[in-house]
């Protein structure tokens, strides 16, 4: 069928959403809650105009002769206010955030020029009791959990998009409580206990779900000249790293990037070595160390992979597991480390 988007005709298939047609046709629509396979219509950022009414493009199916406008004053206003409402809970924390420059909300906030937020009074305007109340309200339901070995959780950053709820194959997350008290998390705020497939971390648009690690120690080891750092890069991971690095550096040569980060040796797993990483990693501190005459005590092994459940399986042979996101984070912070801005 034919539909009209921004005064131009496009062909659409029955059952497609407006969002899908736009994406296919190269028309950009911002979205926060939507991801590849689910569009819940929660963030209300992907709104477009049809017949003067605002509708969410992500979950509205196309109809014959539909007329859509994707940019207008009204649309911008809606996106700005809704983003700002979310931003009001976040602002001011970007500089120290794990996801700085890798965050969907931050990106959209920049795009829609949301700098100061006017839903929360500035500090100077508040009385003491108001300030306390605000702090209490904003913190009363924050859940921080770092007790599981693989995934770091902090609901302070959560934008309640439900991607993790939808994606988790083990149904560990829920959309809990009601209204302004909503917290996305585990039942009874329990410590996350699952197979740690990492899908939730992959889809989280903000820093609510991130990779668990000992960042300071990793940096220390990478920078220590006495340490011999070996990266075992999993099959398929280089492409994922490149995707993550898009917003951070123009550099595309991974070999170079790894060396700059302080790795001494890089082993890329090929088709044949797939799922043989344990054996290969064990080999580093044993056979390889013997052959190269390096004291195994000075070797640090890194498994670079999306299999973040491996973080729970660290051993004398495997020191760290880094996901593609953490590699990107290291690259992002490298400049700051050199300048001495990041604590070692």
């Amino acid at each position: 069928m034919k539909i009209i988007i921004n005064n131009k005709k496009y062909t659409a298939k029955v059952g497609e959403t407006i969002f899908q047609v736009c994406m296919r046709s190269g028309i950009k629509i911002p979205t926060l809650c939507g991801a590849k396979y689910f569009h819940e219509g929660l963030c209300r950022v992907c709104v477009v105009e049809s017949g003067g009414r605002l509708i969410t493009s992500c979950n509205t199916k196309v109809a014959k002769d539909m007329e859509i406008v994707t940019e207008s004053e009204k649309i911008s206003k809606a996106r700005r206010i809704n983003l700002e409402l979310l931003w009001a809970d976040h602002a001011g924390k970007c500089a120290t955030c794990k996801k700085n420059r890798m965050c969907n909300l931050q990106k959209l906030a920049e795009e829609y020029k949301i700098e100061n937020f006017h839903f929360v009074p500035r500090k100077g305007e508040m009385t003491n009791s108001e300030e306390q109340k605000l702090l209490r309200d904003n913190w009363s339901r924050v859940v921080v959990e770092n007790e599981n070995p693989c995934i770091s959780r902090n609901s302070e950053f959560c934008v309640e998009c439900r991607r993790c709820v939808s994606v988790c194959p083990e149904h560990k997350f829920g959309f809990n409580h009601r209204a302004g008290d909503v917290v996305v998390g585990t039942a009874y705020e329990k410590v996350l206990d699952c197979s740690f497939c990492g899908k939730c971390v992959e889809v989280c648009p903000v820093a609510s779900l991130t990779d668990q690690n000992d960042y300071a120690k990793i940096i220390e080891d990478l920078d220590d000249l006495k340490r011999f750092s070996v990266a075992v890069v999993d099959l398929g991971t280089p492409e994922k790293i490149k995707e993550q690095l898009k917003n951070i550096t123009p550099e595309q040569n991974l070999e170079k990037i790894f060396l700059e980060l302080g790795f001494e040796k890089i082993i890329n797993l090929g088709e044949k070595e797939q799922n043989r990483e344990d054996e290969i990693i064990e080999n580093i501190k044993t056979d390889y160390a013997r052959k190269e005459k390096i004291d195994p005590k000075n070797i640090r092994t890194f498994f670079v992979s999306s299999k973040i459940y491996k973080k729970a399986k660290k051993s004398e042979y495997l020191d760290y597991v880094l996901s593609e996101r953490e590699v990107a984070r290291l690259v992002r912070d490298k400049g700051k480390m050199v300048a001495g801005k990041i604590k070692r």
Partner: protein
Amino acid sequence: MQKSSTTSKILLDFDPEAANLLPALKKINVAFRYISEVDAEKVAEYFELPLAKVYETASFYDLLETKKPAILEIEVCSGGDCTLGESAGIIKEIENRYRIKTGDEFNPKVRLKKISCLGRCSEGPIMIVNGKVYEKMTASGVHKILGEWG
């Protein structure tokens, strides 16, 4: 031990079908004043649902508690009609009496909540103490009633 056997007994009154989840949760809540983690796990197992799903549902509704309630749970209606009555004054009186703030969950002895209209407007303002409903409340009448609750 006794408690867990009762929860299981309550569950046996229901077929494990979707339409029975909320009724079962309500019944457990009535029996124990809240739905504990252990009870929620039993419900999840019985209905063959993920625990997160049970909690998600339970935490949504006003009449289901997922946290252990305070000894004294006071609720005051904040609907329009009760507000035109004296409910704002009643709330202040209670806050002062116990030195608490509406909505705070920190005090294990007493908690005060504003609640939505129960449709008893012509008998308002309405105050509820541990489930017992008091009608036509006044700010000055608060102390006598709460005194009876200790």
